[in-house]
């Protein structure tokens, strides 16, 4: 389990307060015609104010589903939260009334989506969509909300905000659109922002700008940030901790530098090894063999064992618990110690 190692309490909640967000043993499944897909299987993590947690995983690892469950925007049916707790500033959101959750959504915790072009309504001006936050959550008049929208756009450094507030999403460049998404999330100065692959759809040059902006704003408002990504490169600069997900569970959870220095799970190792590196120019890139399992038929034992270079017989039957590797660091691998020491070549091709 993730242990609370972050010393600083949430600033506005008084001393000895609970974590900003504390997810415990969350389960989500999708009941489809083709069977039940177990998308999230016992995920736990916590985020404090001013802290950035990166959730890393391939598509289908359950990282985005977890985020949707946190926000309460899971499409239900077919998606159902079947177990666990989501404690936001001490309150279990899963027990909260729908109206209560709605008030929190957008205002206290907000979400940034991957593809701003499709995530913004194509037929409403960005000003309308930004102002809507104030109209709905604060009962502001449309004209005042519009003024606030301009302010927001300026805050995310959109040039000529005043003249562009009436423009429509498709009239902006990709980077500018993502800034508008960020502005929308930021509107009511939430305590927590969940960014689901916020830069994946952008050009590399723009990616860095947007990521920097997000990091700056997070510091400025002392928000908690959950950064969902499949890109190890994005994570290194901005995250405090990383949770690596595979087949709906967290396989490794560690402070970012520890994880980069020495991963404690073969899957993390594989991910790190598949990053191209300049000093290995000319060599063939490493790739984890095989494909992630179908969520309707997750293998018994360790879900990663069919692809794992360290797999033994035990891995096929015995599902590994979260082993404490160090304070604030866990790994779901029976052989985390040898993985950590990188004994025995992990992959022979």
């Amino acid at each position, binding site marked *: 389990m993730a242990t609370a190692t972050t010393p600083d309490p949430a600033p506005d909640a008084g001393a000895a307060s609970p974590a900003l967000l504390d997810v415990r043993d969350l389960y989500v499944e*999708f009941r*489809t015609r*083709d069977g039940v*897909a177990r*998308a999230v299987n016992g995920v736990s993590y916590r985020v404090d104010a001013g802290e950035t947690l990166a959730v890393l995983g*391939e*598509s*289908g*690892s*359950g*990282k*985005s*589903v977890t985020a*949707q469950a946190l926000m309460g925007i899971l*499409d239900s049916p*077919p*998606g159902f939260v079947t177990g666990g707790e989501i404690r936001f500033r001490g309150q279990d959101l899963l027990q909260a009334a729908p109206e209560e959750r709605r008030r929190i959504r957008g205002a206290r915790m907000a979400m940034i989506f991957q593809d701003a072009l499709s995530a913004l309504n194509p037929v409403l001006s960005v000003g309308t969509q930004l102002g809507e936050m104030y109209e709905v959550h604060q009962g502001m008049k449309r004209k005042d909300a519009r003024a606030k929208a301009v302010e927001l756009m300026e805050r995310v450094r959109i040039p000529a905000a005043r003249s562009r507030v009436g423009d429509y999403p498709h009239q902006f460049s990709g980077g500018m659109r993502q800034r508008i998404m960020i502005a929308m999330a930021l509107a009511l100065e939430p305590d927590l922002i969940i960014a689901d692959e916020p830069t994946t759809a952008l050009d590399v040059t723009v990616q860095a700008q947007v990521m920097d902006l997000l990091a700056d704003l997070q510091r400025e408002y002392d928000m908690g940030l959950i950064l969902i990504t499949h890109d190890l490169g994005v994570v290194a600069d901005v995250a405090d901790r990383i949770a690596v997900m595979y087949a*709906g569970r967290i396989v490794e959870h560690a402070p970012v530098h520890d994880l980069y220095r020495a991963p404690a799970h073969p899957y993390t190792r594989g991910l790190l090894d598949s990053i191209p590196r300049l000093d290995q120019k000319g060599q063939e890139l490493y790739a984890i063999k*095989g*494909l*992630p*399992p*179908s*969520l*309707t*038929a997750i293998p018994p034992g360790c879900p990663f064992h*069919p692809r794992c270079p360290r797999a033994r017989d035990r891995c096929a039957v015995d599902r590994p618990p979260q082993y404490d590797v160090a304070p604030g660091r866990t790994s779901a691998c029976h052989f985390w110690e040898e993985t950590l020491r990188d004994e025995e070549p992990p992959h022979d091709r």
Partner: protein
Amino acid sequence: MPDAYVPKEAVTHGDGGTTALAMAEAESLESGRNGRNGRSGRGAARPNGRPRSLWGDAWRDLRRNPVFLISALIILFLIVIAIWPSLITDGNPYRADLAKAQEGSAPGHPFGFDTQGRDVYARTVYGARASITVGVCATAGAALLGSLLGGLAGFFGGWWDALLSRLADIFFGIPVLLGGLVFLSVVTSKTVWPVVGFIVLLGWPQIARIARGSVVTAKQNDYVQAARALGASNGRMLLRHIAPNAVAPVIVVATIALGTYISLEATLSYLGAGLKPPNVSWGIDISTASTYIRNAPHMLLYPAGALSITVLAFIMLGDAVRDALDPKLR
């Protein structure tokens, strides 16, 4: 899928020799199927799975779909009696017995008699032939003409495309029933072919638009671009890469159109512009019966029921096929 024109990079040697493209296809289909793959994280996962093809998948879906099974059964039945009406009736649709005019059902004549004393049951059964013939032939004609013209317009673009679009607009601009009345009122032939010809004439633009749209979309697919970059000839591109993608939407639209064409034939016949006696047509019979609806509603209801069920069957079939081929619409 493994094809000489697929660029090398796209072919990985994954499990069971599946190509990346096939996987991507299966996956995108999968994502459509579950509606929210990207979000649910129902993942990339199809372990050791053979890639499913669009058609294989569609067929698997169709077999389980009661709507498809029922409509296919009805259509099969209709086709059989259109070819061999004597299988289910030994009555003669032409023999008139004026003494029995407008009488209700009698032993051996379950649907009663029409205003000339002809057996309504026999006429209803024999009426299937005209409707099915017109429907099938008109659909085949419109689908062929439409997909050919639409496909070429979509593929070559430019002035071809502009010309065809305007041409299609012209035919769209003519009100169907009025055009039919004008066109068919000057035709003296008593066969079904003028009706078929007219429906093809006004029906092809609809198919052409669909075909054009899907060809334009298919043309933008990465693997088609790749094939082009590798110097595939136009003919080969069209046949191997583009046509297979454009066929599905055309089939869907054509199936639904078949139902509406049957309805159109009946309406034209009702207006006196479609089939003419001695053809046995539901439309003609309904038209005649409409005058006597107060006294002898059975004369109208049986052919009307048969007509409606036939149209319904084709529309249901089209619906089911569309659902199977286009999982996004679920």
